[in-house]
């Protein structure tokens, strides 16, 4: 829901905050976070009473503003897409969520896995109170709780949450009870009717109406379950499923006879045997699929619609992403201890100490990534390293019309927001 086109996209630098003033004011400062529009910066600090709290400075304000409330503990500070600032806070042993200095009404013995919906900034968390576990969405807890809860996710419409839950409490040592199946997936607190030996990686469909997960019914039978019903075919193993953005079909990497394939609704759709296949992604229209694959042991690349790139990498491939129009794919790779970016099988010339997920412009004509070199962070745009270097920097953001890029980062003691026109586009 971020209003990309409403932000200030005039080229030039805005000095958001002089952080040396923060360092004088606070004895304790954690990592800085920038708002999506780059106009604000915030961090967890200790106030004069030596309580943990949050400090924020917005562009145009000379002074940072500290939350009025202090806590015994604050962690997981993050901006939502709407610029609101949320964190998990604890006071006298009770935990809750605090957004813009306003705590939720409900408190818990612990809260974690804070998930902020990209659509509207809704905050969901996993909670535990008196050893009862449930998910809480926007301060509304599930009506049912469980003896164990993992893998909580929020739906695309931000109205639903799902998680893997222990439906039949199983004590340590009860291995035969365990084998009968004590786990399932709960959606908004209601578990599927079916229990499994294990369940992992629940995911919502694009319309938020269905949930799929990987399940195991015995040590050797792995399935994908959709709304509790397993595929007809079991596999030796399976990784996380995904719904197609167009329709309700489900795909997942599956292992059969020691090799990995991509299956759709139980049938193999990529028949090439891979040494590994995982983290598949869809193009926005659902017509194309890309995945990280190892065509053979120790060789990694990207396969698009089951056509692997020619180039392979020996150490690691991650973060595949489609261009908005679905014609290109970019990823991060690691080779000989250094990190790099590849787009459509072409490798950018420079290597880095670290590379972060590449980002496409709306028109697909530009790709940028945050990288680290010699202890400083830079942006690489279409294969060229931009001059400016930062002590800390947020991921790149393109303007709606793809003509500019916004850099949000820390130089010396200044938190800056820099909008730069793009001169060179990728071919």
């Amino acid at each position: 829901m971020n209003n990309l086109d409403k932000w200030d996209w005039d080229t030039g630098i805005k000095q958001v905050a002089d952080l040396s003033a923060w360092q004088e004011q606070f004895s304790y400062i954690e990592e800085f976070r920038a708002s999506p529009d780059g106009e604000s910066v915030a961090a967890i600090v200790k106030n004069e009473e030596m309580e943990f709290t949050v400090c924020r400075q917005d562009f145009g304000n000379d002074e940072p503003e500290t939350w009025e409330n202090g806590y015994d503990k604050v962690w997981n500070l993050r901006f939502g897409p709407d610029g609101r600032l949320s964190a998990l806070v604890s006071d006298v042993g009770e935990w809750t969520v605090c957004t813009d200095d306003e705590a939720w009404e409900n408190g818990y013995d612990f809260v974690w896995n804070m998930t902020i919906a990209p659509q509207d900034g809704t905050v969901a968390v996993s909670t535990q109170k008196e050893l009862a576990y449930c998910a809480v969405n926007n301060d509304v807890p599930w009506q049912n709780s469980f003896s164990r809860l993992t893998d909580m996710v929020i739906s695309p419409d931000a109205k639903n949450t799902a998680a893997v839950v222990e439906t039949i409490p199983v004590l340590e040592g009860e291995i035969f009870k365990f084998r009968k199946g004590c786990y399932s997936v709960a959606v908004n607190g209601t578990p599927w009717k079916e229990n499994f030996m294990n369940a992992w990686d629940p995911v919502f469909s694009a319309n938020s109406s269905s949930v799929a997960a990987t399940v195991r019914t015995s040590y050797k039978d792995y399935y994908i379950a959709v709304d509790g019903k397993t595929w007809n075919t079991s596999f030796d193993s399976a990784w996380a499923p995904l719904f197609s953005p167009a329709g309700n079909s489900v795909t997942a990497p599956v292992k059969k006879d020691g090799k990995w394939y991509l299956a759709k609704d139980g049938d193999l759709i990529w028949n090439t045997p891979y040494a590994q296949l995982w983290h598949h992604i869809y193009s926005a229209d659902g017509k194309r699929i890309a995945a990280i694959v190892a065509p053979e042991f120790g060789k990694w690349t990207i396969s698009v619609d089951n056509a692997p790139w020619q180039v392979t990498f020996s150490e690691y491939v991650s973060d595949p992403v489609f261009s908005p129009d679905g014609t290109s794919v970019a990823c991060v790779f690691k080779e000989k201890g250094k990190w790099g970016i590849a787009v459509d099988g072409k490798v950018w010339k420079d290597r880095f100490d670290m590379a972060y997920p590449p980002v496409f412009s709306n028109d697909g004509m530009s790709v940028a990534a945050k990288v680290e070199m010699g202890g400083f962070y830079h942006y690489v745009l279409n294969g060229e390293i931009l001059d400016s270097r930062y002590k800390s920097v947020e991921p790149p953001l393109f303007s709606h019309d793809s003509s500019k890029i916004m850099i949000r980062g820390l130089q010396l003691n200044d938190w800056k927001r820099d909008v730069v026109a793009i001169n060179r586009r990728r071919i």
Partner: protein
Amino acid sequence: MTESNTVTPVKEIDDKGILKGVEQLTPEKIESTILQVLKDETGAKLKVYVDTCVHCAMCSEGCHFFLSMDRDPKYSPAAKVKQTLWEIIKKKGKVSPEFIKNAAVVAFTQCNLCKRCAMYCPFGIDIAYVISVMRRICHKLGVVPLYIQDTAHSHSVSMNQMWVKDDEWIDTLMWQEEEAQEDIENLRIPLDKEGADIFYSVIGPEPKFRAQLIYQAAVIMNAAGENWTMPSMPGWDNSDMCMYIGDYEMMERLKKEHFECAANLRAKRIVMGECGHAFRSVYDMGNRALGWRMPPVEVVHAIEYYNELFENKKIKIKHKFDRPVTLHDPCNIVRGRGLHEMSRNVVRATCETFIEMTPNREHNYCCSAGGGVINCGPPFKNARVASGKEKAQQLLAAKAKGAEVVIAPCHNCHGGLEDIIHSFGVDMELKFLGDIIYEILDLPEKEE
């Protein structure tokens, strides 16, 4: 010596995981499972090992079970293969449930997969691999000792070996952070810090039973001025009992979670605590099962990390540890990685008096706990401890030379050596390298 050196006969075992598992077997299920594993998962490697062995019994001298059990031939590594895979291959999988019961006991509780015997074999046959194949068959048959099976179930549910829930993990880190702040003001255990130089990973028992080790690591990291982090999410546990029961599909899931946890946080490298079996999983078996030739994020064992701290003078000590120490070389990081000289560098940098135990380095005796044997629990404890008789003698010899403290940079070794020290009246203190470093670390005085 106060402990009997007898082994519980297989017929007397009291392990429901094995006994009840065997009850559910049929000859058909046994045969089809064995043939599937042999046909699809072993290939030339197993065949070469089995065909090459000339039954010379030179491996016997390499096995602490054999030596501790008064050289009883049935504990010879070759005899353990004879009681398991040879018979299975000879009979083409047509073996009885009773045979599987016996084979499970041998494979899970009478071999630590320590690989010492491979050095004594004239052909270098990796008998630990052969025993692992037997464990894989047992896993697929559902015949696994109850305690280690339960641990593997914990891994599958919680991604850690001790059923530690997500909130308990984070709460423990925050608790240890608060404790450490008693030593050092504003000390942090930074959670989920992106782009850190070090992702520090531990094994499940640390938050459950040995939380002070996390505290100590935090103090050491802080003293060294490290840019480090620990994850709040699953993936923090580097341990892997699924590897030892032969549930390789779960081993793969665990290692994927671990490496991706570090990679997603953009950590430069993983520094792991003092654990041996976890190192085997992240540096050899787990990563390779997933298709990575080497770990995708550099893995640095605590020994390597401590050595680096002293070589680069990143920490200062007040004085050296003044009690005489000896050093136990854990199998997985010495025979598996060759870290023995590095661990000696750290001992010499931290301790006044170092007395070698004999044999040492890659020839050191296993603690009898490794390879998942200690994780098979109380039903097999007496037999496990009895198999540590040779180790007890080795410790007593070091003690006779003046050693008072045993340094063992591995969690499983600690468990095994504690039992041996207690049962055989060895009366030596046991420490991790991190205990020693923390104890002598020169920390700035905290302002009141």
